[in-house]
């Protein structure tokens, strides 16, 4: 049993597709390809799980989009290559074979519609803001009031390095296509990903919507031009003072009880472990299914039975968690970025972990002369891919 994907793009479509891949590559070296009847979704998450990107290309974006699940194929036809074929000019045809591996699907939970603060800007404004800062600038702070918007160098950094220039730009609310601020807020996030998002938005010519709340809660940047829908979710720096009172990390399994239990555990050791997997400054790791399990189990070691329960019923939790996000108790981050927990959505988790490379179909035959062809064969099995955004 295998699924099949075949897409064809024209030159200008490839440009947009390419810029999406470029933007995502700033977040991570690894990319999830996730086809469905809704279209082809490209997703990635960085190693410290503080940045996530998802670009969904609807079927009508492509010249040709063909996707089907459950196509019967024989057992001995296994292949792990993704074929990218390019036709350049009239006579040159280029084929790229890219290896892929079956992996756990990626999912993040973030409901941008409940965010207190929403802005919509033209890419031009973001471009003007980005030139203020040097490429060595790590973090920037966005400060808003109901009347204006300010993007500035993150305070922490400019105080550490006495040679660093502090820059800020104030923009009046009338420069925004949409400006709705529920409360005065200052959030700090990573600057690096912004540039990739900007290049992609310039390729689509669509405005950028920004959704955010309070420090610690992730910020979402969305671009939607009817054919392509992109969402980039970046973790923000948790404020020390607001830490206790507000929900911060996008934990997949979130039950009030679990956090209470963690809090009650005495000593720094346990919290240290929990912090390990949610610290932004974690060393980069390759994302294998096992890693996800390690992360969850690290928290599991805190001894919460509620956590274990949650693992088994993730699909249930996730459906409810949208409304529960507000109630989730504070993370234990101390001046660290919150991160988003990711986990598999498949109910057949066990199967995946044992045989991660199992179900890969062979490449189909015959290459027609297409302009640009993107083809992937894989076994979707029972994994459910969905992204509540």
């Amino acid at each position: 049993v295998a699924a099949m994907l075949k897409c064809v793009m024209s030159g200008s479509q490839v440009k947009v597709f390419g810029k999406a891949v470029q933007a995502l590559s700033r977040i991570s070296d690894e990319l999830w390809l996730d086809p469905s009847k809704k279209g082809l979704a490209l997703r990635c998450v960085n190693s410290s799980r503080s940045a996530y990107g998802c670009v969904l290309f609807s079927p009508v974006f492509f010249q040709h989009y063909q996707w089907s699940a459950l196509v019967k194929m024989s057992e001995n036809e296994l292949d792990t290559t993704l074929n990218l074929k390019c036709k350049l000019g009239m006579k040159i045809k280029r084929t790229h074979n890219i290896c892929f591996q079956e992996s756990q699907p990626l999912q993040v939970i973030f409901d941008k519609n409940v965010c207190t603060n929403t802005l919509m800007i033209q890419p031009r404004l973001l471009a003007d803001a980005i030139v203020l800062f040097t490429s060595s600038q790590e973090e920037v702070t966005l400060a808003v009031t109901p009347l204006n918007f300010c993007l500035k160098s993150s305070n922490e950094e400019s105080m550490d390095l006495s040679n660093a220039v502090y820059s800020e730009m104030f923009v009046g609310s009338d420069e925004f296509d949409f400006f709705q601020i529920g409360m005065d807020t200052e959030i700090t996030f990573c600057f690096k990903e912004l540039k990739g998002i900007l290049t992609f938005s310039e390729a689509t010519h669509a405005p950028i919507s920004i959704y955010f709340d309070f420090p610690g809660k992730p910020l979402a940047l969305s671009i939607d031009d009817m054919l392509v829908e992109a969402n980039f979710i970046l973790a923000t720096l948790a404020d020390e003072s607001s830490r206790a009172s507000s929900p911060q990390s996008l934990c997949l399994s979130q039950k009030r009880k679990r956090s209470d239990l963690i809090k009650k555990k005495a000593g720094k050791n346990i919290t240290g472990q929990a912090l390990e997997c949610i610290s932004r400054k974690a060393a980069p790791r390759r994302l294998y299914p096992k890693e996800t399990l390690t992360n969850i189990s690290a928290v599991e070691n805190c001894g919460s039975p509620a956590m274990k329960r949650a693992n088994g019923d993730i699909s249930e939790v996730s459906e409810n968690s949208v409304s529960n996000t507000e109630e989730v108790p504070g993370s234990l981050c101390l001046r660290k970025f919150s991160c988003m927990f990711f986990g598999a959505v498949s109910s057949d988790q066990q199967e995946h972990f044992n045989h991660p490379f199992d179900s890969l179909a062979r490449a189909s035959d015959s290459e027609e002369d297409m302009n640009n062809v993107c083809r992937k064969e894989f076994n979707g099995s029972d994994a459910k891919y969905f992204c509540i955004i």
Partner: protein
Amino acid sequence: MRFRAKIVDGACLNHFTRISNMIAKLAKTCTLRISPDKLNFILCDKLANGGVSMWCELEQENFFNEFQMEGVSAENNEIYLELTSENLSRALKTAQNARALKIKLTNKHFPCLTVSVELLSMSSSSRIVTHDIPIKVIPRKLWKDLQEPVVPDPDVSIYLPVLKTMKSVVEKMKNISNHLVIEANLDGELNLKIETELVCVTTHFKDLGNPPLASESTHQDRNMEHMAEVHIDIRKLLQFLAGQQVNPTKALCMHRICRSGKKTLLFRVETNETSKVSSVLGDETIFL
């Protein structure tokens, strides 16, 4: 110490930005000297000459429509600051299409030169961009090393050919040798020479004209055609020429040999009498 200044004219801002870009290309760190009438950018080349290698002077009233300063003290009404050149040029880069640019000395968490720009935008409200550039105040005891380089009683002083031409000639010569000999006389002749084992190339410029010399007496017995020569590092000359983005109204070169035998070459470029850039290059004869 206080300093506040404002530029509202687009052309002035442009000129100021170009000078800042030139400085940023020449050296990582520069000194900014603020006095009641002038603004100076000073570069020191401690390794080569131990003195000022480039001196740039701006007549304040030609750039700023508001300019207020208060120096270190009443007797020493000047301010000397050290900053990273690129920080200023980058801040000014964001000031294109500005309605107004303000520069002032501030002390936020540490002493800064704050560049504040009011930008025109599509909507009715302006955008305000602010950059706080960290600076170091230079103590008075070091000021003596930062004075304008002068060539008293030069032996030869000559107007330079069109800098663009000179630059392209010197650029080509750089491919052959790092060492350039500049010869000039009081008859309006300037030669640029390079010599290697295999080849010797000379470019001759004639009828350049010589600026009037200060003291007439010393030149009565002087042979007008006698060439004074100085050996210099070609790359240093190129740096100076490359930095000249503005078309100067006057460019000249002065040469002097002091009694000790030390030779100094001074290049000076003036633009409309609003700005003046002087570059000093020392003799670098290699004895084989």
